[in-house]
């Protein structure tokens, strides 16, 4: 047979299905009629002949199906019919269908959305060299001198680049307004190390990072589009960054980012050995691309060698010792390491939820299939084959899963941005993930797998327990079916307990975290980040101090404003500005033993604006002028640690190199949270902003306390700033409350999601228990009727049902507690002062789930108890 005839036949058959169908019917009818006539001729009566003819022909239904199979379209056609049948079935039981579709849809949707995030961040290749690129030690504490030394001394690396990050106002061409540009100053070999070339123009030339080089900049594709409309002649244009003129020399490819998507330009970092910064404090991150043939063993050797070289050349303080804790972090881990763990935790939680939803759907389908044994038995008797019925069940669950996938895809599409926005993704990564076709493909593949998996149980039941169908009425419910039901419920309950206990652990952590004393009062405080251009705009422009003073005077005069102040770094939001401090007269704390402190600047009213108390001595005052006596304040922990048995007041300290003049400690400041809500707060040194020896030109944070609406305060401050100095950009604005919330956001968001998943798991678990118990009750109505007719009290029947229904729940809850303890290692990193095997959480979780189970079992049980015996017996 030629393949062609075969396919044309099949196509004709499939397309002309209806006519073929009627032709077969006609053919069969003709046959039976001829046979009947023959039998009549042989002497049978009309009726008898007809009956005999039908008997001889056999089951027309079956023959029709066999004929259909013979056309080679049987499957395709049957699937269409099955799908229609499935839809009809679903419509007939709307409650069941909606429940199953919704639970599966939610599970699939959540999994899909999270998968898209995980794929975008953890699986998709980075937009630069993915292999063999590592960040040296802990980033952003390398000095220029160390960098040059390491680069010259390294053997195993092709390129070692140094970079940092800055935010400065950008002005393009004649445009008056400046916008804040976050960019990366980097050594000229950065793009070589990353293995990426610009799509337009060129990258940095060697030597462009040395003193005397032209100022050039490479911009991101996005910035090129936004600021230059994608114009080809952007190369050679002049822009002003931080008051300095730069020439645009290149545009990076679309989708490229480094180190994170929020940085939109790269310029050479000028390394000048004559600049005090070169050998001053460390601020650079080092990233190296090792040679191709270098293995892990060679890298370890190289690490040891570099460490030794550094130890020979430099002396380190204990806090900054680079000869210790040397490590190379693969770039992906460095950039996304903090994102990975919470994402994987959520992914795990969502997977659990999906499994619960599947168990639920499987239990529902199993219950329904058993419910339909009569229907199935009739169909089998009419000639449907077992595989045929199995196919029907599979089709039904696939139809259900497909609808769920559509629901899930919709959930994912609608909720994706919200999900991304509320995930703990910092630094612009939210924009780097998107819901692509892969995500939807995942949804459908997932649904298909779920559909097949869910159908497996009832199909196995059907294929194995052929006799069950006939014995149904005697036994009520097959033993195997019952056991499978109980297993599904127990599994569901177990997973629900795991999710709920995880959620309650996080909830308890967050309660602990919430009760942390920040040491400051965030109420009614607005924060505004100002960034000043470094270059001199004009001769009569105010100095930074004059400018800050002028801003404060005008802001404090506003109605509704109580206080205002400036600082260099906002508490619990900003890190940095940390270094070694010299203590006068303390040889034991000199050299390598120098303590590490935070270095924070403030204007006189700053501490009062945030409600931070001065515990001893005085605060910063207006008389602490740049040309006055140098003063400092220390935190309580600073005073306690350095001068345990004496007063800190009058002691002298200095921050920075050896030539930095001493400052007299004039006050002790209340201990406050400075870096994060949960970690240790380092010792803190406060100085007057007016006495900041360097760096205030880069920018400062204005805090304003008042009763006015934050938005109107921000607008007013904006116009005041623009009025005073056009070269100052407003980098970001917000409230101190939101700063605190952001500091708490990761545990809060995780708590939110796990809480949500836990609640869903609980709901699904309860639905499952309810479904199975009420199903069993319906099945055993007659039995209950007899029991009550024989004198059993309704309460006893109720107890019987509840205890029967609760058995798998209790087993599941117990297993859940055990697995929670076993899995506790996974959540340890997300907890704060709560043990991962915290008994309160475990007891609460299993208690809540058990309670949900009891409630779910009580409803149908109560119905069973209220059944009138007569009615129950009649219903069979």
């Amino acid at each position, binding site marked *: *047979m*030629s393949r062609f*005839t*075969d396919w044309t*036949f*099949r196509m004709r058959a499939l397309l002309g299905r209806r006519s073929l169908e009627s*032709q*077969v019917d*006609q*053919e*069969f009818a*003709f*046959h039976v009629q*001829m*046979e009947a006539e*023959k039998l009549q001729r042989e002497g049978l009566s009309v009726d008898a002949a007809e009956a005999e003819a039908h008997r*001889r*022909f*056999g*089951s*027309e239904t*079956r*023959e029709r199906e*066999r*004929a259909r*199979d*013979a*056309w*080679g379209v049987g499957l395709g056609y049957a699937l269409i019919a099955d799908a229609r049948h499935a839809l009809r079935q679903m419509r007939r039981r709307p409650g069941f269908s909606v429940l199953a579709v919704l639970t599966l849809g939610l599970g699939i949707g959540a999994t899909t959305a999270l998968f898209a995030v995980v794929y975008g961040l953890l699986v998709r290749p980075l937009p630069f060299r993915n292999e063999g690129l590592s960040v040296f030690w802990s980033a952003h504490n390398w000095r220029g001198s160390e960098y040059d030394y390491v680069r010259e001394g390294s053997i195993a690396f092709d390129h070692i680049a140094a970079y940092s990050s800055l935010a400065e106002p950008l002005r393009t061409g004649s445009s008056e307004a400046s916008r804040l540009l976050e960019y990366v100053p980097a050594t000229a070999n950065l793009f070589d190390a990353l293995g990426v070339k610009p799509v337009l123009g060129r990258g940095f030339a060697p030597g462009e990072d040395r003193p005397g080089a032209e100022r050039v900049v490479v911009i991101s594709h996005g910035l090129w589009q936004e600021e230059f409309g994608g114009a080809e002649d952007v190369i050679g244009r002049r822009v002003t960054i931080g008051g300095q003129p730069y020439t645009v020399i290149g545009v990076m490819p679309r989708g490229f980012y480094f180190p994170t998507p929020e940085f939109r330009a790269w310029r050479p970092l000028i390394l000048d050995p004559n600049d005090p910064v070169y050998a001053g404090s460390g601020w650079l991150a080092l990233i190296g691309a090792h040679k191709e043939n270098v293995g892990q063993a060679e890298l370890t050797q190289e690490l040891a060698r570099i460490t030794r070289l550094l130890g020979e050349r430099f002396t380190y303080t204990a806090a900054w010792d680079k000869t210790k804790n040397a490590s190379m972090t693969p770039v992906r881990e460095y950039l996304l390491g903090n994102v990975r763990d919470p994402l994987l935790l959520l992914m795990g939680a969502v997977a659990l939820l999906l499994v619960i939803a599947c168990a639920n759907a499987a239990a529902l389908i199993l219950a329904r299939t058993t419910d339909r044994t009569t229907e199935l038995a009739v169909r089998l008797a009419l000639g449907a084959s077992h595989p045929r019925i199995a196919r029907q069940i599979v089709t039904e669950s696939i139809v259900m899963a497909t609808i769920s996938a559509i629901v899930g895809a919709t959930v994912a599409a609608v909720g994706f941005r919200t999900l991304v926005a509320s995930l703990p993704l910092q630094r612009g990564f939210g924009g780097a993930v998107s819901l692509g076709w892969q995500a939807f493909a995942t949804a459908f593949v997932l649904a298909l797998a779920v559909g097949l998996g869910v159908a497996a149980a009832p199909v196995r039941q059907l294929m194995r327990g052929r006799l069950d169908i006939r014995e149904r009425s005697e036994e009520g419910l097959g033993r195997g079916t019952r056991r499978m039901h109980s297993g599904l419920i127990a599994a569901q309950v177990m997973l629900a307990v795991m999710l709920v206990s995880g959620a309650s652990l996080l909830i308890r952590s967050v309660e602990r975290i919430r009760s942390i004393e920040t040491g400051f009062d965030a109420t009614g405080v607005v924060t505004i980040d100002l960034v000043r251009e470094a270059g001199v705009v004009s001769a009569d422009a105010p100095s930074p101090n004059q400018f800050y003073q002028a801003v404060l005077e005008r802001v404090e005069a506003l109605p509704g404003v109580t206080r205002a102040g400036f600082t260099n770094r906002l508490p619990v939001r900003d890190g940095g500005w940390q270094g070694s401090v010299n203590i006068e007269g303390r040889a034991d704390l000199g050299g390598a033993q120098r303590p590490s402190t935070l270095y924070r600047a403030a204007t006189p009213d700053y501490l009062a604006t945030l409600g931070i108390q001065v515990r001893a001595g005085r605060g910063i005052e207006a008389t602490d002028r740049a040309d006055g006596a140098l003063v400092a304040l220390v935190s309580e922990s600073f005073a306690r640690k350095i001068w345990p048995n004496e007063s800190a007041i009058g002691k002298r300290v200095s921050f920075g190199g050896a030539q930095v003049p001493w400052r007299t400690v004039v006050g002790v400041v209340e201990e406050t949270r400075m870096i994060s809500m949960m970690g240790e707060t380092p010792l803190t040194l406060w100085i007057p902003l007016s006495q900041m020896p360097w760096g205030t030109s880069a920018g400062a944070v204005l805090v304003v306390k008042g009763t006015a609406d934050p938005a109107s305060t921000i607008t007013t401050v904006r116009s005041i700033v623009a009025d005073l100095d056009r070269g100052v950009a407003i980098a970001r604005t917000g409230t101190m409350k939101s700063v605190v919330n952001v500091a708490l956001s990761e545990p809060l968001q995780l708590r939110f999601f796990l809480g949500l998943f836990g609640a869903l798991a609980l709901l699904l678990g309860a639905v499952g228990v309810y479904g199975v118990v009420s199903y069993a009750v319906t099945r055993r109505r007659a039995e209950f009727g007899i029991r009550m007719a024989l004198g059993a009290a309704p309460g006893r029947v109720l107890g019987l049902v509840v205890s029967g229904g609760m058995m798998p729940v209790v087993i599941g809850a117990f297993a859940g507690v055990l697995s929670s303890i076993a899995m506790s290692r996974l959540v340890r990193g997300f907890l704060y002062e709560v043990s991962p095997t915290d008994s309160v959480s475990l007891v609460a979780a299993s208690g809540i789930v058990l309670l949900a189970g009891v409630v779910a079992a009580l409803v149908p049980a109560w119905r069973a108890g209220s059944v009138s015996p007569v009615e129950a017996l009649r219903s069979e």
Partner: protein
Amino acid sequence: MSSTSSDVIRGTLDMLILKVLANEAEHGWGICERIQLVSRDALRVQQGSLYASLHRMTREGWIRSYWGVTANNRQARYYEITRAGRQQLKVESEEWSRLAAGVALIMSTT
């Protein structure tokens, strides 16, 4: 469905149908009748399952069907053999002869 010893041996139904159709085109019932008649009632075709075979053989391209009118003026679907069908018949009957000869040999010697 009743299953008697006179049912057509599995696998030979195709051959018998082809053989019947090799003489003239016939409808399903007619094929049954002819097999029964020619074999003097020794063979009986399971009537319903005949059609699955007919449809399968149509797909194979050994036979084709058309709607025609019977002697007493009824609409019926007739099947006729194709060139490929004759080829197939030849192959099958040769195989059958070999098989039958083999079986006969064993039966006669024992």
